């Protein structure tokens, strides 16, 4: 596992070490990863892999069975309210009452966030073409998402924690939202943790990728390094057994032959000179790891 060593430096906006949470039917198993300041961390995994549980633990919404989490340099369990106000959060769903309007939301947030920036909020409403006086019940899913994103961005946040902010949205709206995140990250002090099961979104904007599968972290690494380190090898079925298992991330077989996802591509190339794994994508890597045979 990568990133096994944990260093609580101010370089990390979020640092998670050995986090565990046990439910009856699911366990978050001793997970560790860091989100470096100034980057976008894509947090990927299938539905039910543990993304939301991890995010809830970071936000101290659930009690954990072990581990430590630091957020912006503070223990997540005892974060000062002033620090909390610098975190913008979007959770799956809208979380705002159906019979409120965007204008009501402004009034409420103005009285909750000491650093609320009303004019910034109004600019986002304008930009997203969100009506001020319409009740949220009549908003589409995309509009609701845009409203919560507007809230997250309107109190001078330094850290955005976003749980599936683009799921269930059409490609145009998703693109628009991803652009906003890219704008946000222009400031070096800004950081985003973005969970998604839409890998193409992550591929588009993330600097780092953490892959969670079945409550365990499979890898947490820079996106470029990942794509460089993995390669897809096409070969005959009989050849598969010749490859050292240490290099195999997953195998897929069909009637024509086998495809093997190779890890540690450089080392593999030195050892097996005849083979030439081709460049691959994040999506392929994850599919092989989660669905392929080993």
């Amino acid at each position: 596992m990568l990133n096994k060593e944990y260093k609580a430096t101010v370089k990390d906006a979020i640092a998670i070490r050995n986090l565990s949470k046990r439910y009856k039917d699911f366990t978050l198993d001793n997970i560790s990863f860091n989100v470096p300041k100034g980057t976008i961390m894509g947090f990927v995994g299938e539905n039910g892999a543990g993304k939301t549980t991890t995010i809830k633990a970071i936000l101290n919404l659930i009690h954990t069975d072990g581990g430590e989490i630091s957020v912006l340099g503070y223990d997540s369990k005892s974060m000062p309210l002033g620090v909390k106000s610098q975190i913008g959060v979007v959770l799956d769903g809208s979380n705002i009452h159906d019979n409120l309007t965007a204008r009501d939301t402004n009034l409420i947030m103005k009285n909750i966030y000491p650093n609320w920036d009303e004019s910034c909020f109004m600019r986002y409403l304008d930009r997203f073409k969100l009506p001020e006086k319409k009740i949220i019940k009549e908003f589409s899913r995309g509009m609701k998402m845009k409203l919560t994103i507007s809230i997250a961005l309107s109190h001078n946040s330094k850290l955005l924690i976003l749980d599936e902010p683009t799921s269930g949205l059409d490609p145009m709206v998703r693109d628009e939202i991803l652009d906003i995140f890219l704008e946000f990250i222009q400031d070096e002090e800004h950081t985003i943790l973005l969970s998604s099961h839409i890998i193409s979104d992550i591929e588009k904007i993330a600097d780092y990728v953490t892959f969670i599968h079945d409550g365990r972290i499979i890898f947490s690494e820079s996106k470029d390094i990942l794509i460089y380190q993995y390669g897809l090898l096409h070969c005959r079925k009989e050849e598969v057994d010749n490859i050292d298992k240490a290099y195999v991330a997953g195998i897929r077989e069909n009637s024509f032959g086998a495809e093997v996802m190779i890890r540690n591509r450089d080392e593999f190339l030195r050892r097996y000179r005849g083979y030439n794994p081709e460049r691959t994508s994040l999506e392929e890597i994850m599919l092989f790891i989660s669905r392929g045979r080993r």
Partner: protein
Amino acid sequence: MKGLIIKDFINLKKSLKMFLIISVFYFFMAINTDNPYFFTSMLTVLLAITTVSLFAYDDMAKWDVFALTMPLDRRKIIQARYLTMLLLTLSGAALSAVLTVIISLYLKNDLSAEEFINIGYGSSAIIVILSTIIPFVIKMGVERARLIFVVLYILPFMLIIMVKKMLDKQELAFPDWLKNLTGYVMKNLYIILPLAVLLVLLVSYSISVSIYKKKDL
């Protein structure tokens, strides 16, 4: 915290309009009955009871999980809810008082202090009932706490009826010390009642905070 109370009142906007309409309706009912002031205390109860629907609204929107990502802690969220409850009860009491005055002016009755004292009793009773209910609602959600409400409402009545029956049949007699105590309490009710309500409120609040602090959201 102010934001949370504002949120509650905006959410109740529609119901509050309903209350104004009900008040008008009560006014006409009241001036046509022998007991014109009975209905006014009903208003306090109705208004205070909407506190419970606030929990339902928050549940439906999954608000709490979001609110706790804001610069608010769990204690503040509970504080805000209790304050809203008290504000609603006070507005109910104020509305009842105003209505009482209007009715008596309309009927050209003499106003006695008793009417206002009754509003005070009504408000105290509803605060005690809500203080009992709220910790259950926080623990198990509005839906599942419904059964508890029913029991809480019925139990006191059943007890009173049972005790009264036993007293009538002389199976049960109040010992003298209890009679004396009751007499003493009744004589000093104006001071004992507010203190008792305050105590119940504080106990309920601290139970609610400790339940909420342990809750996984």
